[in-house]
């Protein structure tokens, strides 16, 4: 799908009305204007081009939030990004299409710690790709299980993977990685981001609240989803491991060790909101703006600012996904209940 450029002046102007949009950290009662796959400034259109919208769409009072960005997702729907196959691309494409219903418009396929041969086979097959009706955009891959310490931050590390999980607990004389949240050793102008899996299982609500209150602007909601996401109960493969799914929980087969989450992104957002009591705006930013900032893409992704890519999600007041748009085009829609 083409975006931007001088040719968009002739593209149709879409006006989404009767909605609240997330802009500047606040939910505003404003219309959202889109042209050529980007968010448009309607005031400029009015005074400089003297034009009105070509099409209007009534959003029924819903919330319009920037499309969610999942920077840590290991697979889903039976696809395992860490599996060295000949056709990684199809797997990525399948997940890309299925996560649209969770409101995710961009993601980073994640590989878990694997032998080097796996990286060499898989990584070249994962290419950056724009989103569209075929699926969410691929922003590049990420690698999990980074060991991060203050020296690592100094050397450029910016993201703590799933805070609290798979790391030593906070101790008041040795805060460890958790202490980075309020570290005074972070170079000025840098922000430490940290992923949190808010699926209701991986992190206790109190721990979610402590992290959120200590450093709200760095919180990035991630799914850390495993291939079992979207599949039913039973046994499935993840990298070099076998996992057992039971309801909303996935264990390393034969143990009680958690093995990744299977909660979709919108479920994580709702649970995060309920557990921390934070504002709707912050919960939505944790899944859109903050991951975009982490990846240095905030100029085009993660917000509904003028000029940004028109990737957004229509939510009802309980933050359930009603529709997903990429480049201003409807790519997923919930089935309407009733007549």
């Amino acid at each position: 799908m083409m975006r931007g450029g001088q040719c968009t002046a002739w593209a149709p102007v879409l006006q989404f009305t009767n909605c609240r949009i997330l802009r500047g950290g606040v939910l505003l009662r404003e219309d959202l204007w889109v042209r050529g796959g980007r968010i448009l400034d309607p005031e400029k259109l009015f005074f400089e081009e003297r034009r009105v919208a070509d099409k209007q769409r009534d959003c029924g009072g819903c919330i319009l939030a920037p499309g969610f960005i999942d920077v840590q997702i290991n697979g889903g729907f039976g696809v395992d990004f860490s599996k060295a196959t000949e056709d990684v691309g199809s797997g990525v494409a399948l997940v890309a299409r299925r996560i649209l219903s969770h409101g995710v418009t961009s993601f980073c396929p994640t590989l878990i710690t694997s032998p080097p041969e796996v990286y060499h086979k898989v990584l070249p097959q994962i290419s950056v790709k724009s989103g569209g009706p075929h699926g969410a955009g691929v922003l590049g891959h990420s690698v999990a299980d980074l060991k991060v310490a203050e020296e690592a931050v100094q050397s450029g590390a910016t993201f703590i993977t799933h805070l609290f999980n798979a790391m030593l607990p906070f101790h008041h004389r040795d805060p460890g990685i958790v202490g980075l949240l309020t570290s005074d050793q972070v170079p000025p102008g840098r922000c430490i981001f940290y992923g949190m899996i808010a699926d209701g299982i991986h992190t206790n609500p109190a721990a979610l609240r402590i992290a959120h209150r200590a450093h709200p602007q760095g919180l990035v909601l991630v799914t850390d989803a495993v291939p079992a996401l979207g599949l039913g109960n039973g046994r499935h493969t993840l990298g070099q491991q076998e996992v057992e799914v039971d309801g909303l929980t996935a264990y390393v087969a034969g143990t009680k060790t958690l093995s990744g989450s299977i909660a979709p992104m919108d479920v994580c957002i709702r649970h995060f909101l309920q557990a921390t009591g934070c504002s709707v705006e912050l919960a939505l930013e944790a899944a859109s703006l903050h991951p975009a900032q982490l990846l240095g893409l905030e100029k085009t992704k993660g917000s509904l600012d003028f000029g940004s890519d028109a990737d957004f999600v229509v939510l009802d007041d309980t933050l359930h996904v009603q529709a997903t748009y990429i480049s201003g085009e409807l790519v997923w829609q919930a089935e309407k209940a009733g007549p």
Partner: protein
Amino acid sequence: MKLIILENYSQASEWAAKYIRNRIIQFNPGPDKYFTLGLPTGSTPLGCYQKLIEYYKNGDLSFKYVKTFNMDEYVGLPQEHPESYHSFMWNNFFKHIDIHPENTHILDGNAADLQAECDAFEEKIQAAGGIELFVGGIGPDGHIAFNEPGSSLVSRTRVKTLAMDTILANARFFDGDLAKVPTMALTVGVGTVMDAREVMILITGAHKAFALYKAIEEGVNHMWTVSAFQQHPRTVFVCDEDATLELKVKTVKYFKGLMLVHNKLVDPLYSIKEKEIQKSQSAKKPYSD
């Protein structure tokens, strides 16, 4: 003149909006006959704009065949600046109603040749058939638009340097920093507004009371340019109680006594919905004398 006195800001705003609504609907505008409206900015007309938006949203009023001409705009302020009058009109009025952008006219304070821009504005007003109703406010120094004290009462659209009173009054929109307030503006002249077929001035608040007194109880004087409208055949001043605080009791009593008559201008309140019903029933209109 008609001096309309309402109890408070909210009622004054509503009266004014009803008046404008009735005037537009009774004019019966169409593709060959636009209703030309002159418009102000500032805090005084906000309540009136909100009511007009409400009438549009309820389907009682349409701006499809209305052409608007704003009174003024700052010089040198980018059009997208939140304090420009373009931004004001977009955020407080245009974006909420069904007016077509080509039917709106606001002076361009960033034009290469400012006086040419002003002359062109006068021509656009002429081309539109003149202004049917010019709505304005009054400054604390009695000015209409940016026609500061000393402005010619027959002036036309031109560049004006702002008086200190005006800069002080506007500082609150620029973080209270006098250095940030523009010092020049393009404005319609007193003569330009006088050419309108009807003029409506909105005046609310005790801080405008002295200006209102000077405008209607003293003589025509270029130091209080709103006083020029004493010589206009059709002027309506809409105010709240606080704005009348400097007037003679006699004046206020006289005009309050006329409210029974003046309220007939807004009651009955017309709606375009009725017009559609009337059109479909016109064949079955019962006999009436």
